[in-house]
């Protein structure tokens, strides 16, 4: 694709063009809606051929994770099998209504029932809600469950803790529900600072939210002590499942002492990220909290499945209807496809790949502040000038940039996942080495700048974009 850009669909529009077809009118037309009826409506008027051209051209402006390895840390950009798309798109899952009679949705209820069982086994939890639409939505749900549980015991706990390395969604979920957020320090090893945790863990604290392995890609070895500190004060331990891809079949959040967990089906269970979503964030709890889950849940009576609303302390509903069904179907299919051994191999390979990248990059001169430890499924490099490096990787080497400036400034967090070949890891490493050389050596940079540009645009003028937003295309004057 040449760097010309694609016209806006509105610029393709002409009076008299249209793509739609509709049946002939079958009922008598009456004058309805008099006083409410709007005057104009300005949507694109284009042929179907133009729509096809437009979206094809837009698609080609994106770097696709099918074409390139996407090492975006904490996002688990593993391969999304097309098989799962076709399974989820079957009429019996896609074209059914949420209020259909239970007798007419037995096949789908079976999927939901067994997915719940699978997630229980993988995490060790007692029950799941499949309602949350995303990881952050799972966090809100989990906090509400935990909060309601403590509340019902007469405990008005107001605070929720998470480490400074937590995903931004953790503090945002806490604050948006009206709880007070307090940050816990990490120590020089990248683990939770136990002394700081102890000091902050008072009887005002409802929940401690932890990602383990954390966003440094490190498994916190003091997880039992952490759980003890929290439980001793009557609090709950929340597992942010964003990094579950590191530990499937190796250990289970419940066995580590966690009480509530959300899993990101769009990370660990290979459903696509879809430019931002839809994903799904099923949320699981221990036995004592089961009664607080959102309604309904799927249960089985003999050989029939049904939805039950019979939960005495339910927090209610966190979305309309039952969950992001197509995402659930895909994740379920993926679990059955891999099976127990396959899931474990996936985690082991994800961890192997991340350690391999960390090790080779270390040997090639890159700095890993926590590189004296083995990482889990992702590794965090520190690099002065990371913006330039990331831009070069994209613009000059056709590579997708990893997560930058997180969990701290100048960080480059890489999660290669288990589905990339060793060759693509090596290829990415070589690109990093070459880009690094250009960052440090003006002559190498000059040489590189003579070469091909792979991005459809140059670096975006973010300052201008932020200060002078243009958020919609103005309508043409009639």
């Amino acid at each position, binding site marked *: 694709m040449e*760097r010309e850009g694609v016209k806006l669909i509105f610029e393709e529009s002409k009076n008299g063009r249209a793509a739609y077809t509709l049946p002939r009118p079958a009922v008598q037309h*009456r004058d309805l809606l008099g006083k*409410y009826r709007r005057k104009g409506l300005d949507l694109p008027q284009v042929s179907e051929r133009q729509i096809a051209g437009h979206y094809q051209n837009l*698609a080609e402006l994106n770097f696709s994770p099918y074409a390139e390895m996407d090492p975006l840390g904490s996002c688990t950009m593993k391969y999304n099998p097309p098989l799962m798309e076709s399974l989820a798109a079957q009429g*019996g899952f896609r074209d*059914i209504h949420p209020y259909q009679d239970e007798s007419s949705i037995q096949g789908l209820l079976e999927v939901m029932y067994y997915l719940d069982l699978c997630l229980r086994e993988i995490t060790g939890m007692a029950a799941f809600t499949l309602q949350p639409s995303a990881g952050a939505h799972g966090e*809100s749900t989990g906090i509400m469950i935990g909060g309601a549980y403590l509340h019902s015991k007469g405990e008005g706990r107001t605070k929720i803790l998470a480490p400074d390395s937590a995903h931004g969604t953790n503090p945002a979920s806490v604050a948006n529900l009206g709880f007070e957020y307090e940050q816990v320090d990490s120590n020089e090893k990248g683990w939770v600072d136990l002394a700081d945790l102890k000091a902050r863990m008072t009887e005002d604290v409802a929940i401690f939210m932890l990602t383990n392995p954390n966003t440094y890609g490190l498994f916190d070895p003091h997880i039992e002590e952490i759980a003890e500190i929290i439980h001793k004060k009557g609090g709950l331990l929340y597992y942010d499942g964003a990094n579950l891809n590191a530990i499937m079949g190796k250990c289970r959040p419940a066995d580590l002492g966690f009480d509530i967990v959300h899993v990101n089906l769009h990370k660990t269970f290979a459903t696509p990220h879809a430019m931002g979503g*839809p994903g799904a964030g099923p949320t699981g709890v221990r036995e004592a909290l089961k009664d607080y889950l959102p309604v309904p849940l799927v249960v089985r009576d003999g050989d029939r499945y049904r939805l039950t609303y019979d939960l005495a302390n339910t927090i209610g509903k966190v979305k309309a209807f039952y969950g992001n069904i197509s995402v659930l179907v895909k994740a379920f299919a993926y679990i059955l496809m891999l099976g127990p051994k396959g899931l474990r191999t996936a985690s082991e390979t994800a961890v192997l790949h991340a350690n391999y990248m960390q090790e080779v990059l270390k040997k090639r001169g890159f700095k890993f502040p926590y590189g004296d430890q*083995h990482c889990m499924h992702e590794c965090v490099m520190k690099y002065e000038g990371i913006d330039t490096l990331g831009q070069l990787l994209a613009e000059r080497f056709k590579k997708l940039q990893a997560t930058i400036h997180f969990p701290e400034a100048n960080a480059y967090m890489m999660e290669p996942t288990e589905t990339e070949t*060793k060759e693509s890891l090596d290829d990415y490493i070589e690109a990093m080495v070459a880009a690094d050389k250009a960052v440090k050596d003006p002559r190498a940079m000059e040489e590189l700048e003579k070469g091909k540009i792979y991005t459809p645009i140059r670096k975006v003028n973010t300052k201008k974009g932020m200060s002078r937003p243009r958020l919609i295309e103005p309508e043409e004057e009639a």
Partner: protein
Amino acid sequence: MKNHVPYIPTTEADRSGMLAEIGVTAIDDLFEAIPRHLMLKGELLLPSPAGGGLPLSEMELKKYLGDLSALNPHSYTCFLGAGCYNHYVPSIVDLFTGLPQFYTPYTPYKPETNQGTLQAMYEYQTMMCRLTGLEVSNASLYDGATAMAEAAKMASRLTGRTEIVIPGTVHPEYRQVLDTYLWYGDWQVVEAGIRDGKTDLKELAQRVSDRTAAVIVQSPNFFGILEDMEAVSEIAHKNEALFIYLVVEALSLALIRPADLGADIVAGEAQSFGTHMSFGGPHLGFINCYSRHKSKIPGRIVTKTEDIEGKPAYMLWGAAREQHISRSRATSNICSNHALNALAASIYLSWYGSEGLQELADTHNLQTAYYAYEKIGRIPGYAPAFPGQEIFNEFLLRCPYEVGSLNRRLLDHSIIGGLDVGRFYPEYERTMLLCITEKTTKDDIDRLADILTYLNEKGLS
């Protein structure tokens, strides 16, 4: 399958080579940070619902999930609506939402490699604003119910007030979600009643005060009736509260423009625009607002700008509102959203265009719904529950029988009847919410009328 695990390319030789490079001998050396006694002994005990054990091959998986899909009838005539609408999805929508360049990438944090996503979202925002008449649209939320709850919090932030006034004519599941979302914090939900299937405006006016952050009213409301939104707007604005105009059936926007009726914020569900029903999700939540309120809107927003060479370019705007930058001060915790459904909406709206969307909404929903309203309403024992009210494509129908039993009889005729509204409103027992779309044609309505008449003669049992 012998040794390989599907989708994992790492061979034994790769594995030992990489372990050697790392300087360890076994994979478990990499897991040394996990206390040994906490590690799982043996394999996960996953259920094997297809019988015969796991893993399943592609063929076995297709068979099993194909069989399960076949258990759910999906080509019946469907008269259900109530927040999930059975509209036709043009083929081109599925083709392009199915392109890997759209369905596999992450959120477009790095603009240079995601221009396709960003431009598509900018176009989506523009189309939504042209429909509502407002100035800013986010690039999707999870669904209408969560969008409404987010809009309530947004209004609270904008006004510094904590009460949300909402009538019983709003979708019951949406109100449940609002209650759940606002359960803990310093917010109060104040309910207003129903009169003749519409918001009781007198009661609404009494409930709204200088503590009110927002008045939320849905139109067409849960019973399919158009609310008097101008009157609602006046009540809200007299008290300097914001008016959140809730749209659950987005197709109504083809004929009604919320900006004309005083909306400050339009929140809702746009599943009708090219997203399959999918048993209720994933759908497409949205919030539109005026530019003066944009710093408090939740969710991603794309701005048009330029690159360093001055060429047009698109990027995410206002990251300071978002969780990954502002953490506990963010306007929402939303991260993953429903961008693919927003793409579906843009393709859908481009396919119909201005004229097509209005023809679809008017001729094939509104007009046909009135046809059904009169035809079914004339059958002995049946009658519109709220005669004389203006509707869009749904109406509440009084029935001579308990609705569940009636619907089970209709299923025998390959018809999925309307919603049993008594499940949410005990006072409306024996009423059915009937929804008419372009997929329930005049012939389908005539057939339903014939069967209801036949059941009158024959009885239900």
